[in-house]
Structures are given as structure tokens and as C-alpha cells.
């Protein structure tokens, strides 16, 4: 099989997971940087709208590597989606597909459900919930928690930090709560 065909197929967890894990030592060894991503959102606030808030008054330029890193993630997403795209549709668990059909999801062709994530939804109540409220919860929540799945669940856990274990458990509890207790209503009502 051609190498490029192999790359274009979806990567199994035992390839992707270790590669993600290796980001931690890579960043540490090439520049003494701790891996984290949600801090980039804070640097954007500090750079664009510090507004005299103490939390945003620090030398963000010293942390600018983090903004280069997330710009790289964006570029990587572009490259993978345009040059290494998977020739077939995403292979979801049949149980997930039937569960989501019940909730009203019809399009399973992309990585994101086109029923929700399209620009036509942007100015609807549904868009307000999924993009604006959802994004707000992600930004507000990670900052209050002091990190996201990268800073806590990968960097924190790998360095045996028990507060990161608590944060990770809370990420999961929040996720299960939304999936099973709230999402069905969001999909039905909006």
C-alpha cells in the first residue's frame, strides 16, 4: 500500500494517542514550555482587551509561543482536511448513529454534523446555544478550572498532579451530564 493512502485513512487510537502524548516532552525539550492550549485564549484577551483587569496584566509577549502553537494547530487542520482527507465517511458506532438520529441529526457525512454546524444556523436560537453558549462555557470553564484537557488531563496527569485529576473527573461529569440529561432537551426545543 502506498504511504499516502495509509496516512489518508483515519488513524487508530494507538497511533494518535502516543503522538499527542509526545507533544509534552517535545515542547519541554525544545523550549522548556509546558503543554497547554486554553492559555492561548487568555493571551488573546491580554493582547487585545486587557481592560485594566489584573488577570490580563502580565507579559503575554513572553508566552507568544502558545499563539504560534495554536496557529500551527489551525494550519495542521487545514493541511489534513485538504491534502490528507479521508476518502470515506466517518465510521461511527451504529449505536451512536441511531441515538443521534432520534435527536434529529441526519447528516453523518463530515466530522461535524452539518445539521448543527452550518453558517445558516449562526443567527438562530440553535446557533446561539451550540456556538455562543457552548463556546462561552468552554472558555469560562477552562479558565476557572485553570486549564483544559491539554493542561490538566495530559500535562497535569502526566506530572501526577492530583488537582488535575479532580479537574479531569469534573470535565467528564460535565460531559456525561450534558450528553444524557441536557442535550436531548436542547435538540428538541431549539
Amino acid at each position, binding site marked *: 500500500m502506498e504511504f499516502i493512502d495509509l496516512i489518508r485513512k*483515519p488513524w487508530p487510537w494507538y497511533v*494518535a*494517542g502516543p503522538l*499527542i*502524548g509526545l507533544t*509534552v*516532552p517535545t*515542547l519541554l525539550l525544545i*523550549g*522548556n*514550555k509546558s503543554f497547554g*492550549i486554553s*492559555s492561548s485564549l487568555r493571551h*488573546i484577551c491580554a493582547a487585545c482587551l486587557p481592560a485594566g*483587569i489584573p488577570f490580563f496584566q502580565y507579559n503575554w509577549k513572553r508566552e507568544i509561543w502558545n499563539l*504560534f502553537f*495554536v496557529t*500551527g494547530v*489551525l494550519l*495542521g*487542520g*487545514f493541511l489534513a482536511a485538504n491534502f*490528507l482527507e479521508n476518502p470515506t465517511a*466517518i465510521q*461511527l*458506532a451504529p449505536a*451512536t448513529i441511531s*441515538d*443521534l438520529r432520534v435527536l434529529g441529526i441526519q447528516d453523518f457525512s463530515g*466530522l*461535524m454534523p452539518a445539521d*448543527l*454546524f452550518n453558517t445558516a*444556523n449562526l443567527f438562530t436560537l440553535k*446557533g446561539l446555544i*451550540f*456556538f455562543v453558549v457552548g*463556546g*462561552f*462555557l*468552554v*472558555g469560562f*470553564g477552562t*479558565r*476557572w*478550572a*485553570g486549564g483544559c484537557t*491539554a493542561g490538566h488531563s495530559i500535562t497535569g496527569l*502526566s*506530572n501526577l*498532579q492530583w*488537582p488535575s485529576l*479532580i*479537574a479531569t473527573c*469534573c470535565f467528564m*461529569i*460535565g*460531559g456525561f*451530564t*450534558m450528553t444524557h440529561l441536557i442535550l436531548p432537551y436542547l435538540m428538541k426545543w431549539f
Partner: protein
Amino acid sequence: MQHIENFDALACDAPNDMKKAESGLANLKFLMVGVMFGIVFVKAEIISWFRIQEMFRMQSFHMYGVIGSAVLVAMLSVWLIKRFRIKTLAGETVEFHTKAFNKGQIFGGLLFGLGWVITGACPGPLFAQIGSGYVVVVATLLSAVAGTWVYGYLREKLPH
């Protein structure tokens, strides 16, 4: 809260501990690592809203495998760096940070979990989703920046 802001409380969660001065060009290294990371995100489909649904419905092992093996590999790397006192490329001692517990990890963690499911993304995948062509996620990202800002604004009033 007795003592409010010491420097640690304000320090970044992904700090730059490099002591030697770095040229602006050095940042291209981090751009490259980010590119690799973004490619892995898309190819492993972990930027997918569907995969997050599968995970929280416990209908697939994929996401648990990705996160679990990432943590194990990172843990082993950290142990090796500490055990053999491996230095950075610039010859510096690698810095690790102790995280102090505060109640924000509980409240904030729960809120983040709620947002994780409806957006189908944590902060890293947000950038990769935009890059891979889901333009509408720009709205989610801007909202996440707004959420971060509002947290900074309300910080003194929130329990920690």
C-alpha cells in the same frame, strides 16, 4: 480568601520557562509542533462532534484509547526526563509545576464539560475545526475568548 493574588495565582498554566533569550524565529518550532498536532487531531477524528458523542455514550473505545495512551506516553516521558535529568536543547533544566487545588477545578471543570459536548471541542480542537473548514466554529472560538475575558473580569467574585 485570605491572601488573594500572589504571582503564582496569576501565572499561566502553560508557562514559558525558557531562561535563555529566544529569537522571534524560534517560535516557528512551536508553529511546526502545532501543525503536527493539528494533523493528528484531524486524522484521529478527535475534533469530531460525533466522536465526543460516542465517548460520552460509551459506545466506542476510540476517544478513551486516544486520551489514555496520550496520558501514559506523556507520563512515561515526564518520568524519564526527571529520572535521567534530561536537559532541554538549550541545556536548561526542565521545569515542572505543582498545581494547587482550588474549587475552580470543580466548578470550572463541570462547566467546561457541558460546553465540550455541545461544541464538540476543547480549546485545541476548536482551532483544528476552523482550519479544516468549519468556518462557523469561528463564532465558537470568539465566544470562548469572551468566556475567558468574563472569567478574568469576575475572578475576584468567584469561589476558588
